[in-house]
């Protein structure tokens, strides 16, 4: 097996052992922290498909994270207040079912990604970065000025949503749900990357001219990747909202987009487990540096700068060397 595969397995093992240890030692806070890592990693796995595989530097993935979050918030708030939603003449009940909420989050973030992607993928480089950023901010300001769902203050959901057969209020059980979803997303990401579609997508990133010369138009490939990417990040948004039992416009802000991008860059752009390592490192640093200094973000910035300058390929790239061709 390749070195990177071993590293990936070690990371997975860590994500199993840490919460297990926390259960034994009765440290619920550690479980919550690990849950946060796993959910943010999921958001990063989504972005990695666009950014890492497709070379699409999206600075607006908070849009999908937020849409996922608000899908949860809106549905659950109607359910907890027993008031149906009014969509035109249609009355739609809210829900506290995670499965339905995930489906809605995935569909809506997919539609949002289709719309944003169809417009922004006609540009490239800095323009693409700016346009995706602008779309994210548009949704941010929209959420702020949407009083029905809390506006600037956001929405609180009193009880975590339900999953058949599980007690989602038990931290370790909620963790398990998130962990399984992360594994599923990693599987999808891995298969996608080595598939024919993935080969063409990676090819388009490296040399779009060459791709056209073999008869493939990059636009459709990139748009498809962007939508899949948005859907995964949207699912992460719904879980994140469930973890906090709270949604607010912050989920849409460019800080959030930036953080998701940092996970990917820190861990290794285009590396399967890059976002997982990145998210874990980010949360650890936030936790530790935050305890040491109020200016932890400054130090985080320095670390990020060091990674970008000296550890191209991020943590995974540094540990595993340059990417080996997948079979």
């Amino acid at each position, binding site marked *: 097996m390749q070195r990177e595969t071993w590293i990936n397995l070690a990371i997975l093992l860590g994500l199993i052992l840490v919460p297990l240890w926390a259960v034994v030692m009765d440290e619920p806070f550690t479980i919550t922290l690990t849950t946060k890592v796993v959910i943010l990693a999921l958001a990063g796995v989504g972005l990695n498909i666009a950014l890492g595989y497709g070379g699409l530097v999206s600075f607006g993935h908070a849009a999908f994270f937020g849409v996922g979050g608000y899908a949860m918030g809106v549905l659950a708030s109607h359910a907890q207040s027993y008031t149906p939603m009014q969509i035109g003449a249609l009355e739609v009940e809210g829900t506290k079912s995670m499965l339905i909420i995930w489906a809605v989050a995935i569909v809506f973030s997919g539609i949002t990604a289709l719309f944003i992607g169809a417009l922004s993928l006609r540009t490239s480089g800095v323009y693409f970065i700016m346009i995706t950023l602008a779309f994210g901010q548009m949704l941010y300001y929209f959420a702020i000025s949407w009083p029905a769902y809390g506006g600037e203050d956001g929405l609180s959901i009193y009880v975590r949503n339900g999953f058949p057969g599980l007690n989602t209020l038990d931290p370790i059980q909620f963790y398990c749900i998130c962990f399984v979803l992360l594994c599923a997303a990693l599987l999808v990401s891995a*298969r*996608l990357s*080595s*598939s*024919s*579609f*993935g*080969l*063409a997508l*990676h*090819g388009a990133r*490296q*040399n779009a*001219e*060459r*791709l*056209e*010369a*073999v*008869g*493939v*138009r990059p636009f459709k*490939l990139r748009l498809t990747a962007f939508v899949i990417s948005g859907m995964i990040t949207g699912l992460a948004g719904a879980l994140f909202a469930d973890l906090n039992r709270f949604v607010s416009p912050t989920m849409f802000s460019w800080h959030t987009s930036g953080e998701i991008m940092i996970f990917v860059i820190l861990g290794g752009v285009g590396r399967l487990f890059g976002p997982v390592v990145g998210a874990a490192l980010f949360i650890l640093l936030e936790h530790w540096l935050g305890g040491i200094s109020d200016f932890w973000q400054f130090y985080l910035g320095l670390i990020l700068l060091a990674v970008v300058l000296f550890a191209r390929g991020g943590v995974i790239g540094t540990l595993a060397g340059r*990417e080996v*061709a*997948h*079979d």
Partner: protein
Amino acid sequence: MTDTVLSVTNLSKFFGALKASDNVNIDLHAGEIHALIGPNGAGKSTLIKQIAGGMRPDKGEVILNGQDISALDTAARARLGLARSFQVSSVAAEFTVLQNVVLAVQGHQNLGMWRAALRKTAFSDQALGFIARAGLAGREAIRASDLSHGERRRLELAMALALRPKVFLLDEPMAGVGLEGSADMTALLDDLRHEAPILLVEHDMDAVFSLADRISVLVYGRIIATGAVDDIRNDLEVQRAYLGDDA
């Protein structure tokens, strides 16, 4: 009458006052190698780009097997069998030789999202065949960026083969492959002509004279002569305009 596979009619492209293509007419017959020669800056690459679809002509048509393809984009032309190599090798640098050729084999079809591309034996087997034919057997697992200059040229030809081409458009395939490499490359091009006719832009006159069936001479965007190899070799005007520069 010979079968005309590709014809370019009255094609013009101006860059401001510069006439890169000036009412160009050129065609390619089944089974032939038609060499396009001319001094640097004559407009050879520009012409290839317009035929392949990367650049729009100001006027004129490109006809492939009787079909006017002037309005089609590069990808659509590639799907119809226009296979090109670039003057500066253009491959996916992070991919291995095999990945590059599989990319061409799968083309726009079957872009499935689940099964590993290289595990599809139909794809890999075909790709290995093209790689061997281009003289890269044993180099399948090497990254394109680690290939020598000449090998990268061969990789481009393997990818062109993988498109099941109707026409090869080759822009200086021998540039920079060295003396020994150019003999090998000449043999390879001689093999490729059995697959599809070749429009060959080339500076290496020995190769051109040994390979070509016909030669066209492009100077300042205009075709000043087209004819059989011996006619062109003896054409005084050509010697003045072109060969004289080198000799």
